[in-house]
Each structure stands twice: as C-alpha cells, then as structure tokens.
C-alpha cells in the first residue's frame, strides 16, 4: 500500500517537474511575449498542481491537505488573472505602436 502511494507521489511530482522544465524552455525559446505568456501560464500551474497532488498523500493532517489545495487554487486564480492583465497590456501597447 505504502509503496503504491510512494509510487503515485513520485509519478505526480516527476510529471510536475517536467512541466516546470517545459515552462522554462517556453519562456526562454518562444519568440514573442504573447506566446511565452500563453505557454508559461499553463505549464507552471499544471506543474504546481501535479506537485501538490503528489504531496497530498504525504500531508500529515486533513487541515494541511486542505491548505495545499487552497494554495493551488490561489496560485491558479492569481496566475490566470495576471495572464489576462499582461495580455491586455501587451495588446494595448501593440495597438499604440
């Protein structure tokens, strides 16, 4: 049982690490700001989500598990909103030029 749980944690965390890697590659390699924004917002949210998923079985108490989930929700909310704001700012600037 505990082996299966550990394996699940490792798989989820490994996948999370992969998405962080993908996000960084996108940030460095993609040609313009909008496509970088597009790739980044998705991949870092998914990366953190998978890490949180992998850590959930290791959370000591239900409260700390709940905190982990709330934390992911907060990051998703702010990162999605910031992506909207940044996108709008980029478009405004593009129109002004």
């Amino acid at each position, binding site marked *: 049982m505990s082996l299966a749980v550990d394996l699940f944690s490792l798989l989820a965390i490994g996948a999370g690490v992969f998405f962080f890697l993908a996000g960084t590659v996108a940030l460095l390699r993609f040609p313009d700001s909008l496509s970088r924004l597009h790739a980044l917002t998705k991949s870092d949210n998914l990366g953190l989500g998978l890490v949180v998923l992998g850590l959930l079985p290791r959370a000591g108490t239900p409260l700390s598990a709940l905190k982990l989930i*709330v934390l992911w929700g*907060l990051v998703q*909310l*702010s990162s999605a*909103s*910031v992506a*909207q*704001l940044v996108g*709008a700012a980029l478009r405004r600037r593009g129109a002004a030029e």
Partner: protein
Amino acid sequence: MTLFDALDLALAAIVLGLAAWTIAAREVFSAVVGYVAYGLLLAIVWVRLYAPDVALTEAAIGSGVTGVLLVAASTRLGRLPKAEAPPGAALKIAAAALSLIVAGLLAAAVLYLPDPAPSLAPEADKDLAATGLGNAVTGVLIAYRSFDTMLEKVVLVLAVVGVWSVAPDRFWGGAPAPLGPAAPEAALVFLARILAPIGIVIGVQMFWVGADDPGGAFQGGAILAAMWIIVMMARLAEPPRIGSGWLRLALVSGPAVFLLVGLAGPLMAGSFFAFPAGFAKPLILFIEAFMVLSIALTLPLLVAGPPSREAGP
C-alpha cells in the same frame, strides 16, 4: 556532501546572483524586478534556517508589499532623465576594497562564532508556560521584549506621519492618490473580489494560530494589509482621507493599547509591562488584535504615500 548541502549551495548561489543583478542592472525597473525575485527566494532561505516566522514576514513584507512599493516607484522614477555622472574609477576601486574588507570581516566573524553558541532558547522556554503561549518567537515579541515591540509600533506610526508630511500644505488632510487606474481591467476587479475574502480569512488565522504555531500579529497584519492594497489597486476602495479621526485613532490603537496595558502592569502585576499571572494569554491576544489592526492600516498607507487631493468640505 549531502543533497541538503547541494540544495543550500544552489539557493545561496541564486540569491547572490540576483543581488548582483539588482545592483548591476542599468534600468531601475529591471533592478527592482531582480529585487522582488530575491525577496521571494530569501523567504525559502529563512525556511531552511528553521525560521518559519521570519520566512512569513519576509514573504509578506519583504517580497509582497515592498514589491508593490518599489515597482510603482520605479515606473514613475524610471521615466526621469538621469542627472548624475557615474563615479570615477578611483572611487569604484576604493568602494570595492572597502566592501571586500567589510564582507571579509563579517564572513570571518561568522566562521569564528563562539562554540558552543550562546543561546537564550532554554531561558525563553522556561517561562513560556506562564504566558500561556506555545510559540517562543511570539513570546519574545509580546512578553519578554514587549517594550521594544511597542516602540517599534511607534516607529511605524512615525513613518506614516513622515510620509504624510511630505505633502504640499494645500493637500493636508486630503486623501492619497488612488492606487489603481481610473478604469481597472475586469480581470483585476475579479482577482481582488475573490482574493481579498480568502486572504482576510488566512490573515486572521495566521494571527490566531501565532500564539502556538508560526505566525502572529506581524504576519497576519501584513497579509491583511496586502489584501487592502489589492482592493485599492482594483479601485473597489479608495485611500482614506488622512484627516479622518477614525483612521488616526485606529492607527495609534496598536501602540496605545500596548502602552496602556504596560502602564497598568505596576497595579496588576507589580512592574512596568508585567502581565498578571493566569491572565497573560487573553491580555496578549487583546494587545495583538490591536497591533494587527494598526499594521493592516499602516502598511497600505505607507504604500499609498502622501495625500495628493484637497480635503473635502
């Protein structure tokens, strides 16, 4: 070398690299962005030093609220023409030599710290039960070094007075400029509407658990302050008129309540700033509640800056 050491070394290298970028960047804005990232990583360093209370303070104030202050300042100051000529080579070399000597001496001091290290931890723990607290850091802040912490609140109020007094005479008593654009994006308003209630719950929880777990008045107050800031950036609320009596009363309530309880000490417990036995914990939470209020008001007012509108009728 263990994995922990490798992680610590990597963290140390990134922190120093970001600090170097902060001082080397040509544009002020790039420097500030480096500094915000640096503050974030510093919070992780504090966790590695087994200092979650400090890490929380650094995350909330060092990175969050300072970030807002500096980013806003740099976008306004960055547009100005540069007035100064860079210093000459002689000054640079002298400054580099001085900095190397100071850093070297500090590093040597770190290396030759007394061993075994002196520690007040057992002392702090010995009387902690009498205060009813479980978090020794909160105990030091509110009970053992309470006079210090009270004066620190006074310093915060003085800083607010200092920022206000920068305003031109005609704006005295008016309100600071709004923190957000006249027509904020819908996404920003949405973010503020959802984030603020959740943040208020988390901030109050951090203050409440601070008696026994990492957290406390500073951390909870800083989170609440951040929530007020984002609400003002989304223009859901406006900075208050600084002439408002209620605002001024709430600002000084933290140190004032602290001082009153301290002055009552000789009557109730036999000495200045002493808490009566058996009644210490409720008293400490009472003081802390007003400190939270003071901090939650002070930090956003410091970010909002001096008044820039004339006082209304």
